[in-house]
């Protein structure tokens, strides 16, 4: 019963306009000259006052990128991207770096408020009732937020409180200044500069993103989150996130993203690196809600992202959960390299494509350590003329004695003009490993639909309810506030797909 009520409320709260994050913030911006060359790379590095080694690192990446070609193996189609026709640095103008939230441009704060991301400390993430003033130590956990607006981080909340525990949570630009040794030690060790075309591009021109370090034995007392917003026209966003969980630590990290509605396509090429040492756990959740383009497939974000985790320590664990509702094109494979013995990798994903959206997403689980185990649960939903592909790799090295993988991929088709595809790769070189893969494709069962309709639900609500049920295994992995948000998103994303 509560689930039904909740779904109904969700549906009611959804406006007919669909994408409600599509507004544009009118704010004075500073851009790098259009185009991409070594000077732009130097410009970005100078702008961020980076040490020499980092500039060299970027230039090496740029040199690699120039020799690389865009990957063409994904089941997505798009016109060639002109990499010279975009701004690689766009930041709101500000006099000096704000020392506290009070100094942040109120226009920016209003933008995040509108997006439901309160940058006031002691506020909790929107999406649940009573957002705003819950004190930090009330029943609900507060959420620390790093807000990235186009190319720069504009604010990070709860920094002092986290610092008391020894936790470093700040933008990566700031970490380069304040903790250069940590950044230098870990940056690019999980996703090297030349890993792939988009990762190389990102390594050359990345601007901001989050940096997290959880010291030994510390359980991070609150959810950490980053909210990415693309606002400026003709810009790309190249975020770089680096999370290090030292021995025995735990952190749960959330990521959200939105962009204005525009007829042009914008590129978002991020790199996320996670490192878990002995007995550490990182839980990484994403609700990806970039602008998906309109009903005719005009505009929308190209989300070409490289996310990878190294479970370097024994008994370390990384869990990826993603809800992918936005973007015109998604190209994303959050992966785990399971190096430490007994380490664990998980991947839970819901990907929705409606209208003309295309998603080619999945994961890679590379088993190296003994008794490593991985679980993959992927739910793909296609509607309209959307194309949804699960592409995944499970590789077991000869060293991974006793390794275990279970994979479940389900696809749901709504309408006869969409497509659902499953492309798993299973490579096993270890006799004692056990690998299992299952995939199904079906449409919403008539009898389920009929049952809901006979209980008085409209067809659209019934579909929403069934889809939420279909995705439940994944949604339950999300932190509570995000789960509510994600349910709403599923509903909105499927609007207009029924009837």
């Amino acid at each position, binding site marked *: 019963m509560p689930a039904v009520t909740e779904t109904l409320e969700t549906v009611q709260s959804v406006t007919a306009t669909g994408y409600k994050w599509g507004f544009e913030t009118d704010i004075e911006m500073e851009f790098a000259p259009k185009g991409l060359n070594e000077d732009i790379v130097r410009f970005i590095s100078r702008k961020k006052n980076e040490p020499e080694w980092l500039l060299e690192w970027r230039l090496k990446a740029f040199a690699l990128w120039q020799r690389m070609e865009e990957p063409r*193996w994904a089941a997505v189609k798009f016109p060639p991207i002109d990499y010279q026709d975009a701004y690689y640095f766009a930041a709101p103008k500000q006099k000096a770096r704000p020392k506290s939230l009070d100094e942040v441009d109120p226009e920016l704060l209003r933008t995040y408020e509108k997006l439901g991301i309160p940058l006031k400390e002691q506020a909790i993430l929107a999406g649940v009732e009573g957002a705003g003033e819950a004190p930090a130590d009330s029943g609900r956990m507060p959420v620390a937020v790093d807000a990235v607006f186009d190319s720069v981080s504009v604010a990070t909340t709860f920094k002092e409180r986290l610092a008391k525990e020894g936790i470093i949570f700040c933008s990566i630009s700031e970490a380069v200044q304040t903790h250069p040794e940590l950044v230098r030690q870990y940056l690019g060790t999980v996703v090297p500069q030349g890993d792939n075309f988009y990762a190389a591009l990102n390594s050359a021109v990345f601007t901001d993103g989050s940096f997290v370090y959880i010291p030994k034995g510390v359980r991070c007392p609150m959810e950490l989150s980053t909210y990415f917003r693309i606002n400026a026209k003709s810009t790309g966003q190249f975020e770089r996130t680096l999370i290090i969980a030292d021995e025995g630590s735990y952190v749960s990290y959330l990521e959200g993203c939105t962009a204005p509605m525009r007829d042009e396509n914008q590129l978002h090429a991020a790199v996320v690196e996670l490192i878990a040492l002995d007995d550490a756990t990182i839980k990484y959740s994403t609700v990806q809600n970039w602008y998906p383009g309109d009903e005719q497939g005009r505009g929308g974000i190209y989300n070409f992202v490289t996310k990878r985790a190294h479970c370097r320590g024994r008994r370390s664990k990384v869990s990826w959960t993603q809800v992918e509702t936005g973007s015109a094109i998604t190209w994303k494979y959050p992966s785990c390299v399971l190096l430490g013995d007994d380490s664990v990798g998980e991947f839970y994903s819901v990907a929705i494509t409606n209208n003309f959206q295309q998603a080619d997403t999945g994961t890679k689980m590379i088993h190296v350590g003994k008794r490593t185990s991985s679980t993959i649960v992927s739910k793909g939903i296609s509607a309209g003329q959307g194309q949804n592909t699960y592409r995944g790799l499970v590789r077991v090295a*000869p060293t991974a004695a006793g390794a275990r993988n279970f994979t479940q991929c389900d*696809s749901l*088709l*709504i*309408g*006869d*003009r*969409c*497509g*659902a*595809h*499953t*492309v*798993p*790769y*299973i*490579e*096993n*070189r*270890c*006799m*004692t*490993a*056990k*690998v*299992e*893969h*299952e*995939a*199904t*494709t*079906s*449409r919403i069962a008539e009898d389920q639909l009929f049952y809901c309709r006979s209980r008085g639900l409209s067809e659209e609500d019934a579909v929403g309810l069934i889809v939420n049920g279909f995705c439940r295994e994944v949604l339950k992995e999300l932190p509570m506030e995000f789960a509510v948000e994600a349910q709403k998103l599923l509903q909105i994303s499927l609007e207009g797909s029924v009837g």
Partner: protein
Amino acid sequence: MTAIPETRPSGAAGFLHRYEGLAGRLPGHRLPWLSALRARGAEAFRAQGLPTRRVEAWKYTDLRPLADAGFEEPLTALDTAPPLPRPRGGARAVFVDGRFRPDLSGLDGAALEAGSLAQALPRLEGRIGALASPEELPLVALNTMLFEDGLLAWVPEGTDAGVLELVSVATDSGRPAAFHPRHLIRLGRGARLTVIETAAGSAGARYLHNPVYEIEVAEGATLVHARLQQEGRQGFQLSTVQARVAAGGTYDNFTLNAGARLVRNEIHVALTGPGAACHMNGAQLLAGGQHADTTTFLDHAAPNCVSRQTYKTVLAGRSRGVFQGKILVRQAAQKTDGYQMNQALLLSPEAEMDSKPQLEIYADDVKCSHGATVGELDHDQLFYLRTRGVPEAEARSLLIEAFLVEAVEGVTDETARGTLQEAVRGWWAREAAAS
């Protein structure tokens, strides 16, 4: 200054070289349509070459050992009589090094028209190449360019033609030889046929057997195609089946890969009429340094079709197994029911199994699923048998057979099933004894 070594063309260049030298002598060289088709094959092969692992469809199978070999035409004396497999009853067509041997075959009295393709070429315009287009697959291009002979089997409408045996034997002429037979099998409306195929070769022979099958199953017809691949351990087999099944027809393919150094078994089936069905099953029994690749492509192009696939691979030694299976459901193919399962058993720490099942679906009212598992023998089952007094080696053999049986059981024709069961039974005991 180092001298540039004189190189004999090998790999793709070697085959093209042979084609250029032979074009005026190949069977049917006076038929303009056939010469044009062969030229298309050469053109496509020149453009594509032998596939490398950079090509997605060949990600797990490396043809370099083949490219390095430098094959020539087989030189078989017409009266060689290599040992043949025991006859299974019914009609029999025997090919030695890819050439039809009427003296060893027995096709009289069969309820079908069967014989040498080379003899029938003038009548085959528009038939050869109708299903297997050289532009699509490089190995079909190679075959198109160089085929000399093959089986022609036409079953008239409404006829049950019983069992037809297709035997291919490779002899050892002391130098690497390549043959590229083209087999045409066509069943009229409501016809039935069981083809039991054995491919074998002498143990030390280095050869390439590159057959292409064009199979047409008309409305309501049923073809059972059971293939037993027992090529010599130095042989390469790269086979391509292109089959089309019309409304209400059934194509039932079972392939058992037990021989060869390297085998690629590629099967493309298109279900083009409502209610067509396809069963594709197979087993790969690999040991030593063998490499076996089964690649299937099921094209559901019409509504209400059913497809079932079960593939089992057992890997010992340093062997490597590959399974790639794609099911495509086109927009028109509503009410499709597709199922695919591939399972592998690793018996050795040095064996490797790579699987890539794949679904590509554009129709919404469908039921499609696939599954894949890789693992070792179940310790509990082994323990159970040991507690019942079964010796370890026997227990392993039993469990391996039990694992394979599921795939063989799917073969509907009794004679075919018997032949396959025989090959599976005791495989492990023989391998274990040999190693």
